[in-house]
């Protein structure tokens, strides 16, 4: 009996125990890492340590481990998934292609690394994410002018690429000096897909072919159309990183020096570590994740939000935009956020000015059209989550007593009418008293 009231007291706390990952607090903490071979844990330890030092709990499992699962009883066990298992044909446990796609569709992040013996399953996952690997299973990216110079005479499959996408939010604000070492398969992106981006492209002289056999016909993937590392930001703001090389994440590549063929500069350390660490920060929402809160609008001079505006009113609109920094929400500072006053087409389109503390505001005059308008903020920038805010507000015409009382253009008519009245008055006086 005494246990019953205690149990009842604890019931309201249950919802808080279940919300360890919510859109309000996008700090991914638990990541499932599926490996082909547990030796990857040590051969790629620098990369995993960089993730763990930022607070991620990595759960290393073999890809065909029968006990793995992404969700249990409808709740996801992990906030992110890393697939470093390019040769796996079947996942163990309850994970399969549909489960992984559901995982991404529910807003979670994914990192996939393929390799030159990538299985069909990995290729299919990548195709579902909008990225097409070369169909030839033995093909690798070969570049005879941009390869990495090494002691042994290689087949030029180890390439040094520095064709990065220009984005501070994706790759960090520090400039990447050295090229990135890459050895693996290339993929192409469909030009119709607006959500994927090439982060690291191959040089124009690269092509994808089997290094061991002679080229019988021209390769299908050539030049800068080959993407080595791509990202996808889905419409639900889930982020996916797809790389054609697993060995570019390894300690060996992180620590090795690099010299691009044809150049004289020999860099002490390749920029694999910087490039992949910064990208992983973006993938796990430590950069470029925006939220817009607290939309307010009111008439200029008043403080509360009216339920309706009148044409030719002056109004002030404000919104607060924050960016997640990995630990807390920081104010987002930009000068290109715009608000539209929209009814079938934008009647007003204005840039919002910011006070640098996250508050964006502007003032404008309601147009001379009445109807039901929307305050729309549509903000889509490369690497940032998309903001799409919309708030409806009606606009009414003038009431009959809100028009100007005396129209200046009609003053002559007022004058004529009154002069007629005065003339009548004077005339009656004259007419009556005239002999």
């Amino acid at each position: 009996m005494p246990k019953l009231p205690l149990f009842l007291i604890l019931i309201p706390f249950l919802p808080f125990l279940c919300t360890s990952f919510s859109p309000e607090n996008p700090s991914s903490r638990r990541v499932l890492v599926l490996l082909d071979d547990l030796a990857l844990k040590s051969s790629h330890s620098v990369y995993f340590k960089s993730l763990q030092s930022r607070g991620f709990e990595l759960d290393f499992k073999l890809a065909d481990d029968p006990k793995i699962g992404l969700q249990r009883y409808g709740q996801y066990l992990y906030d992110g998934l890393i697939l470093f298992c390019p040769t796996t044909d079947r996942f163990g446990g309850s994970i399969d292609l549909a489960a992984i796609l559901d995982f991404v569709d529910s807003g979670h992040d994914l990192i996939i690394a393929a390799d030159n013996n990538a299985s069909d399953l990995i290729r299919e996952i990548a195709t579902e994410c909008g990225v097409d690997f070369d169909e030839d299973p033995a093909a690798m990216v070969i570049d005879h002018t941009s390869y990495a110079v090494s002691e042994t005479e290689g087949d030029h499959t180890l390439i040094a690429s520095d064709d990065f996408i220009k984005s501070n939010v994706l790759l960090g604000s520090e400039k990447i000096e050295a090229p990135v070492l890459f050895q693996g398969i290339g993929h192409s992106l469909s030009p119709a897909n607006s959500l994927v981006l090439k982060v690291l492209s191959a040089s124009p002289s690269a092509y994808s072919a089997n290094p061991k056999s002679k080229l019988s016909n021209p390769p299908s993937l050539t030049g800068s159309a080959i993407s080595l590392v791509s990202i996808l930001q889905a419409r639900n703001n889930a982020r996916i990183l797809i790389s054609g090389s697993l060995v570019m994440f390894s300690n060996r590549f992180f620590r090795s020096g690099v010299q691009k063929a044809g150049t004289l500069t020999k860099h002490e350390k390749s920029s694999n570590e910087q490039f992949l660490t910064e990208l992983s920060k973006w993938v796990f929402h430590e950069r470029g994740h925006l939220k817009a809160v607290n939309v307010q609008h009111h008439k200029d001079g008043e403080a509360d939000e009216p339920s309706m505006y009148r044409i030719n009113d002056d109004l002030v609109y404000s919104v607060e935009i924050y960016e997640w920094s990995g630990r807390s929400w920081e104010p987002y500072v930009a000068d290109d956020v715009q608000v539209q006053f929209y009814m079938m087409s934008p009647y007003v389109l204005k840039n919002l000015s910011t006070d640098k503390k996250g508050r964006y505001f502007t003032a404008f005059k309601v147009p001379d059209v009445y109807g039901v308008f929307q305050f729309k903020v549509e903000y889509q920038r490369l690497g940032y989550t998309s903001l799409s805010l919309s708030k409806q507000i009606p606009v009414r015409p003038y009431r009959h007593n809100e028009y100007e009382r005396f129209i200046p253009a009609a003053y002559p008519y007022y004058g004529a009418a009154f002069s007629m009245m005065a003339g009548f008055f004077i005339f009656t006086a004259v007419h009556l008293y005239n002999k």
Partner: protein
Amino acid sequence: MARSTSKDAQALFHSFRSAYAATPTNLKIIDLYVGFAVFTALIQIAYIAIVGSFPFNSFLSGLLSCIGTAVLAVCLRIQVNRENKEFKDLPPERAFADFVLCNLVLHLVIMNFLG
């Protein structure tokens, strides 16, 4: 032919002037009043031709006040004129009272329509 018509016009004008000098003073005063009303109406028409008809109700109201005033004054002149056989039995005071009442109604309507 042109010379004879211009001579005729001049003769007509002279005879009109001499006949008009013979009209009584009170009729001349009414004529002056009508002239003032018509002149104001012409000013308003010139104004709307230049500026456009934006508050059209105000234009109609102003114009109607001028024209209504002119019409009522002409009616008064007809009824007050002693040479007019038709209104021989109508006392001029009655004509004047009608004139005043009609003008009151006219100005009431004008004020309402002026906006």
